[in-house]
């Protein structure tokens, strides 16, 4: 199979796959070395980028998948007649803590957040963004939680290592201070905006 043919076959497979295709799976199927497959995919990715196509081959959840480019989001939503969903802040916070600290128990999450998190946790479980990994071998045997493949796919992360780096506190503090100074004077409305967002529905 020459390079063009290989790229062509991979394009076909990516189109029909139900979830992101892993290099390993492709290599096995094509009876090729992973490095060959990877090379072909990277060339394909580049070709889509170069012709500024409306679709791209994204590396998410340890696999490759055709996705629309972000710039076209508005049009795609129009097709589906959907409005952009937004995550509630509790959901995002809880998700972030689970993502970075997994395996993690509910008491640990609640200590870090400072609030009861059972309801959010349940929602995240229902949405299949987090899952139960097992039980922790400490008194009380609390359940331990971790994120799912869907979590990676939803956030477009290649793997857990692709999570944004946790920032040093000093950096955050500076940024937030600057942000607050930039918006000073409308403190009240900012706070209230925050309130209405927090109450908003989950995705």
């Amino acid at each position, binding site marked *: 199979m020459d390079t063009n043919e290989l790229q062509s076959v991979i394009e076909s497979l990516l*189109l029909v*796959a*139900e*979830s992101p295709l892993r290099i390993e799976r492709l290599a096995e199927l094509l009876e090729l070395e992973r490095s060959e497959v990877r090379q072909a995919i990277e060339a394909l990715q580049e070709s889509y980028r170069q012709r500024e196509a409306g679709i791209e081959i*994204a590396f*998410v959840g340890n696999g490759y*998948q*055709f*996705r*629309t*480019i*972000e710039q076209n*989001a508005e049009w*795609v939503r129009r097709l*589906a007649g959907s409005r*952009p*969903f*937004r*995550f509630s*802040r509790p959901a*995002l*916070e809880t998700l*972030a*803590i689970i*993502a*970075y600290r997994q395996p993690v128990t509910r008491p640990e999450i609640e*200590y*870090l*957040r*400072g*609030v*009861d998190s059972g309801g959010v946790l*349940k929602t995240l479980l*229902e*949405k*299949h963004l987090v899952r139960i990994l097992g039980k922790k071998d400490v008194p009380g045997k609390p359940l331990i939680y971790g994120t799912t493949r869907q979590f990676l*796919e*939803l*956030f*477009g992360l290649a793997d857990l290592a692709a*999570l*944004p780096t*946790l*920032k040093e*506190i000093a950096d*955050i*503090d500076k940024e*937030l*201070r600057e942000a*607050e100074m930039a918006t000073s004077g409308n*403190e*009240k409305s900012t*706070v*209230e905006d*925050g*309130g209405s967002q*927090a109450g908003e*529905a*989950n*995705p």
Partner: protein
Amino acid sequence: MTSPFAVRLDAFEGPLDLLLHLIRKHEMDIYDIQIAEIADQYLGILDDMKSLNLDVAGEFLVMAATLLQIKSAMLLPNPEIENEEESEEADPRAELVARLLEYQKYKEASLELDDKALLGRDVFTREEGVPPELRDSEVAFVEVGIFDLVSALQALLKDARPETVHEITQNTFSVSDRINHILDELTSKSSVAFKDLFLGSTDRSLVVATFLAVLELVKMRTVKVMQNSRQGTIWLFPAVPVDELTPHELEDGQFGYE
């Protein structure tokens, strides 16, 4: 009555979030929090809430107590302090500061996550690939994991008569029969409720055979199992075109006992 910092507690994720807000507002060094001042501010806000007859969540009250505890601890001279290092360890604020720093880190990370190109919001993929729960919030079905299925099974078994231990249950219901039954139902109705598969019976062998049949159909990707909320009815849908639901592959030769 309201303080100049009229804020709504529900605007904050919790006491840590509120504290961070106050610390920033008063431009304090997070490593050197003026506990007395912050505690006053914090309690003032809680009082405002109460005077407006608003519920103050327990977590906020716990934090208030913590602040007062730290405040009083700081008023006490500590005779054991001899050098700088020890004094830092003995700082009554240390744990709170650590928690605030930690919380802030994750809060920031969560905002960064939200800035990502989210599937179903900013980027899209072929419909089959999109997690169904992200398609439409109200009516969308959620794909069910093994946990949900077992939980449904448990609900069914709850009503079942306790088994007589040494009685070998006659397998009156075989899994392939149940598979065929499910496929028949799906062909005629295009969807069927999980609980309706049990014919209103709690016969253990029927329940187990049906449960295994569903698992097997899911594994074969012939059937999708969906639920519109955690407590909602579990539905089975065909995962393939209806005319491919014919049970021809499921003859006894393939499924029969050896």
